[in-house]
């Protein structure tokens, strides 16, 4: 997506978020008996976010107009970007989400081992056996340090 469109998007999203917040804040009942209720502060902030969104929009449009005037070629031509294949960009976000889901619902140790193995394979291109051994080692270290030594509050283990 071009920078210009991104900036327009930022401005519009800000106006939508700020406007929605201001409308919802205005509907919060004020039972305090004073002019200042629970909705006053979010109402003011919502309006400020709308103002910021409008400012982003105005500056984006002004900048675009100025660029069109001085450097028409630069405003229209976006430099091509070399990026890895689209599916690889999703591996780490999906691994992160999968790790959290597995850690909360099944086992943090298992999730840790799996996360290390997947990252080792995907990012380091190590052999699967190396990745699995690394995953097991990471899970053991995590278990000993956080669950046994530090006794930190962690999700319940449902595997063992």
């Amino acid at each position, binding site marked *: 997506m071009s920078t210009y469109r991104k900036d327009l998007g930022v401005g519009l999203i800000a106006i939508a978020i700020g406007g929605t917040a201001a409308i919802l*804040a205005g509907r919060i009942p004020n039972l305090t008996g004073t002019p200042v209720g629970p909705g006053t*502060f979010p109402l003011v902030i919502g309006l400020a976010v709308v103002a910021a969104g409008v400012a982003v929009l105005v500056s984006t449009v002004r900048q675009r107009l100025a660029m069109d005037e001085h450097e028409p070629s630069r405003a229209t031509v976006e*430099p091509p970007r070399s990026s890895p294949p689209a599916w690889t960009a999703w591996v780490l976000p999906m691994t992160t989400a999968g790790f959290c889901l597995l850690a909360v619902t099944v086992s943090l140790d298992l999730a840790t081992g799996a996360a290390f193995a997947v990252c080792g394979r995907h990012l*380091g291109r190590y052999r699967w056996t190396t990745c699995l051994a690394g995953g097991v080692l990471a899970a053991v270290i995590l278990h000993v340090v956080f669950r046994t030594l530090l006794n930190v509050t962690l999700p319940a283990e449902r595997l063992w």
Partner: protein
Amino acid sequence: MDTLTALLQGLGTALSPEHVLYALLGALVGTLIGVLPGLGPTAGMALLVPLSVNLDPVSAVIMIAAIYYGAMYGGSTTAILMNVPGEASSVVTVLDGYQMARQGRGGSALAIAAIGSFVAGIMSLILLVLLAPLLAPLALDFGPLELCALAVLALTAAINLSGPSLARGLLSCGLGLLIATVGSDPVTAEGRFTFGNYDLLAGINFIPVVVGLFAISEVFVASNSGASSIFEGKLSRLYPSRAELRQSAAPIARGSLLGFVLGLVPGLSPAAASFTAYDVERRLSKSPERFGKGAIEGVASPEAANNSAVGGGLVPLLTLGIPTSPTIAVLLGAFLVHGITPGPLIFSEHPDVAWPFIASMAVGNVILVLLNLPLVGLWARIVSVPYAVILPVIVVVSFIGVYSVNGRAFDVVVMLIAGLVGFVMRSARVPMAPLVLAIVIAPILEASFRQSLSLGDGGVSAFGSSPLALGLLAAAAVLLVTSLRSRRRRPLDPGQDLEDDF
């Protein structure tokens, strides 16, 4: 002279092997707590106060205080090396510290953070001893009007961290304030933006948001970068050069002074001190464009400020018995557990505890610097560890840090959403730092804002009755206008890479 004698006697007590050992233990535990996002100094100290009950009062307060500044330093280590701020005041260290690490200068950043923290700790100790009786009444001058004005000033400083676009800074700050208002209203308990969800009724915790914005979004960015580690070249220098030390000297001194003064103000977190110190440095710099790209002053000054704010916060505690922050409140609890009430009489009734406690700040800071400087080389090499290893470490540590605070899966969901939002914000060049400070300051801003409006029957007229509040608001306006002018001369470059922004 009496003060000096008492301080020297206190130093003698603090230097006894037993107390040095407790300071060392506190500094070690504190560093470990600080490294882990989520378990900040407040939670760490609160967890360990009950364990200190069986110790003698001097050992207990020395250990608890050492945990405090140990955690402050530990938070900076992960902020610089992994873009994971351990606690709120480390967020601003991320801006230049992580960029330095990416340039292979992580060792210099860590060393300057250690030196800055040490110098600030010693300076704040001297200021505490010399100025405590004079400055203590200042804390009592801060009512809701002044507090609201000061919070506005701190937020204005944060908005200035927005890179080339002030509107984006304002937007980020507003989003942070909106996030902070989610949950029960503190006065009427009326739900705000909760949509009937019980988890949202308890509000959105600061830790999952900050960890998601910085650490998780970093994982997402790394997956697109194609790089094999945070820094792929050869580590050039593990310790700061003479030029870097010279560049950092004045920012450390300024950060120390500013942090101490802002630490005096009740309710203002050390994070506000570090954000303000960063903004001051950028304004004073002859080349402000270097900030956010690895300027060493951007590490030196905020690190000094957040450490010095600790000393500043002790002035109202020791002289008036007023805790100025949740962390200082836990420290107050540690005193009370041992039957010592901090306040005007502490120096006459319990000099055997008060002076060794103050002197132990110097001992603890020396221990921290001795502990951390030799390890800088080892820590700095973390940036060369392959992403295949470091990214899962970041994910696991972030998860544990977020989950361990309340034991809620909801916080993990918030962290993931914040990670996604952080990724979008980076792509759209919306700065994240103002959002973080806004979440930290929002409770105090909202409470003082509402009290101030109530004083003026719903209007802002009450601000006119306080010259201090008016002065602070005027300072905020001047900050805003001057930065608007400087940005007009330096328009936003649409071709700018997102790495250049923060």
